[in-house]
């Protein structure tokens, strides 16, 4: 931190300087126009002050040339702001394919996080420098918002759906984590910190927290105890229910004739509301698990299903539709507004 009043927060992600640059551009334009208008106002006010009480100045009818000028120029300037802003926005909100995933569950008034390697954290997130991190987030109750000013990014955490936020930290340090969407009584207490570490330190931190079950393993256990195995097969190979192996991230054909990408949102929906989008060839026999699995457990089940394609299960997918399109890298798996 500077000793004088700082103008920008700590910069700790690859977005920081990009957003700052645009911010300074906007500030410069704002300052220019604010000063221009103020200077003109002050100049005119002094130069053309009323000198005699009953004077009438000559009327001026206006000028189309000037009107065009001050319509077109501000519009062109606005378009540069628009284009520049949109470009960074696309980067901010399109997570890269090769990111490390961290699950985030917001609840009044705390953040619960779990790394893919199993470590759990409350109101803290440890991340290494130089790696792309993707947060898959949901809420147990109301809307929250995961905001790290030093990373210049934020995303709402919405109940009933998954939202994602990604970043790549650049500078080790401890940074504020805020809930930026008003969420009730202790909203201003729903804060924490993001701790950015050198990769080596981060590995030490990870190994110092071993013993935790990974989300995928926990999901596998749930898969057994909830009885999923009886229809989807002991290892997700399928049976009375569709196979779960090798389907994640791909398109699958539905009973309705449409097809859908198997992403976090679809798996979640299929567990909570199984009849909503039935896989082609399967009947509506699955019961709902609404109220029986928590948000954390849902994320663990999803992690397990994700692991089924990475693992040795090589059963060719029967669910992949002929109309399968290659998975577009970087497309947010978030379900958009219906």
């Amino acid at each position: 931190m500077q000793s004088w009043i700082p103008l920008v927060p700590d910069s700790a992600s690859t977005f920081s300087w990009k957003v700052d640059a645009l911010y300074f551009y906007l500030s410069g334009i704002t300052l220019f126009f604010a000063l221009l208008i103020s200077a003109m106002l002050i100049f005119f006010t002094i130069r053309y002050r009323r000198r005699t009480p009953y004077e009438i100045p000559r009327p001026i009818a206006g000028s189309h040339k000037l009107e065009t000028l001050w319509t077109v120029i501000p519009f062109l300037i606005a378009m540069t702001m628009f284009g520049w802003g949109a470009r960074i926005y696309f980067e901010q909100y399109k997570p890269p394919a090769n990111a490390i995933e961290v699950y985030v569950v917001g609840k009044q008034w705390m953040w619960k996080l779990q790394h893919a390697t199993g470590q759990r954290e409350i109101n803290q997130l440890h991340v290494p420098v130089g790696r792309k991190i993707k947060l898959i987030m949901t809420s147990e109750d109301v809307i929250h918002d995961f905001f790290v000013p030093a990373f210049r990014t934020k995303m709402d955490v919405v109940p009933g759906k998954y939202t994602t936020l990604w970043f790549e930290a650049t500078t080790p340090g401890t940074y504020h984590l805020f809930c930026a969407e008003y969420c009730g009584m202790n909203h201003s207490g729903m804060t924490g910190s993001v701790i950015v570490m050198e990769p080596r330190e981060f590995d030490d931190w990870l190994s110092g927290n071993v013993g935790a079950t990974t989300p995928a393993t926990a999901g596998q256990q749930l898969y057994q105890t909830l009885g999923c195995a009886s229809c989807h097969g002991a290892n997700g190979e399928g049976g009375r229910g569709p196979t779960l192996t090798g389907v994640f991230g791909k398109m699958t054909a539905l009973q309705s004739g449409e097809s859908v990408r198997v992403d976090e949102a679809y798996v979640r929906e299929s567990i909570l509301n199984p009849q909503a989008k039935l896989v082609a060839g399967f009947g509506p026999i699955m019961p709902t698990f609404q109220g029986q699995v928590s948000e954390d457990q849902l994320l663990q089940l999803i992690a397990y299903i994700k692991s089924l394609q990475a693992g040795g299960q090589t059963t060719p997918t029967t669910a992949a539709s002929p109309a399968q399109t290659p998975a577009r890298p970087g497309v947010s798996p978030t379900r958009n507004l219906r």
Partner: protein
Amino acid sequence: MRAIESFEVPAPPRVNYINAQYGLKSWLLTKDHKRIALLYLGSITFFFFIGGLYAMMIRLELLTPQGDLLQSTTYNKVFTQHGIIMIFFFLIPSIPATLGNFLIPMMIGAKDLAFPRINLLSWYIYLLGGVITIYALLAGGVDTGWTFYTPFSTTFSNSYVVATGLGIFINGFSSILTGLNFIVTIHTMRAPGMTWFRMPLFIWSHYATSLIFILGTPVIAITILLLAFERIAHVGIFDPALGGDPILFQHLFWFYSHPAVYIMVLPSMGVISELIANFSRKNIFGYSFVAFSSLAIAVFGFLVWGHHLFVTSQSVYAGMIFSFLSFAVAIPSAIKVFNWTATLYKSSISYDTPMLYALGFIGLFTVGGMTGLFLASLAVDVHLSDTYFVVAHFHYIMVGGALMGYLGGLHYWWPKISGRMYPEGWGRFSALVIFVGFNLTFLPQFIAGYLGMPRRYHAYPPEFQVFNVLSTAGASILGFGMLIPAIYFVWSMRYGKHAEANPWHLPGLEWRTQSPPPTENFEVTPIVTWDAYEFAPREETEVVGKFRPELERI
């Protein structure tokens, strides 16, 4: 330069709209638009000071980083109620229901609004909505934020959400009736010769505002009803636990509430056009551009609600379209600012209080509007949304814009409304105090916001304290500045100098009748043969550039 001519004004008869009848009943059952305007003036001032009290509580709490003055539950209610009172019960009705009500018939040469009874009804509806809301505040208050975001408001909040919602729902009908009344009046009641392009720009901006009243307000009514259904009957609309979509609420809410910002600022722009032209004795530069920019703002204002949802996981493509449209809606506002500034060129500027407010408005509105571009710009909004930058931005629009216009207008027309002059020295002094206090309050919040201070925080990290101390100091000055006009306006009603019919020497119709006006506004229906702001004959009009006057007049 030529000397101003004195307009022929009938000798002031003793009877005017204020002393035409006496007694409480004559006020409560009045159909006179001027008396109804005064009823509104009294009630919105009441709400303004309640909202101001909440503002002071917020600023005192935020003086220190710890949440030590108020409990967090209380603080959450205080900022919620500050927003609800100020927006729904002060800012939205402020200029239209008081100055608009009083002046629209007078400016177009009519005896009254088209539907005087509906006009009175709208005040009673406003009052009913206000009473219900006050009941909700006294019974325990509401803590959802003025935005009522779901599912917090429908499922989790333990406060008087439905009662407050009912107050706002009912209040909305008064807006709709006012808008309807204005539109019909402007269409059908203009005096002979008062063509559309002779109308003062105040009328144009109220016409545009009325369109939003009529088209937008029903949407907030529907939204509040749905919210109440879900909260009372657990019908799943917004709460995902019931099968609803929480983001749907935000779309519906902002479909009204973003245009509502233009409801607040458009009438103020109308006032500023009057002040700039009349206190510089100059016709507005580019009259038709200023007039049509009001309509453009009203129309485009309906297409930008999605810029409140850039960080909700809304589709990035939708975000892009809303960002583009938000930049587009800024252009008509820029056109206005440039035209106002150009009007001052080679004019004759007086330093009377209303003009000070007008000049202040242009400066503050420029900052407010330009900082809106930061929030329209997608990537920067991702960082800034829900921070103090947003708070600072909309206060520049709502206080620096809407409120400055309201105060300027109130001073300008006070001689006409009350028949008395306010004390000019105190007027200038308080305008200056308000301007300084306002900037000291909200400028630091832009910086705090970019540094990441989230809004609606009851306690905050200590590094933000310096900004909050400045803000609180500014708010104290601002609060003090607001008290001065309140005192001298009341004082002037009894002790102020009697106002002439036309104390500012202006050509507008409202100045061609006595102050205060008679109940029927004009002794004889005026016949209009002049343009708005026609201080000098048309032959003397200076033509700059390649402007062709016949285009201007259409």
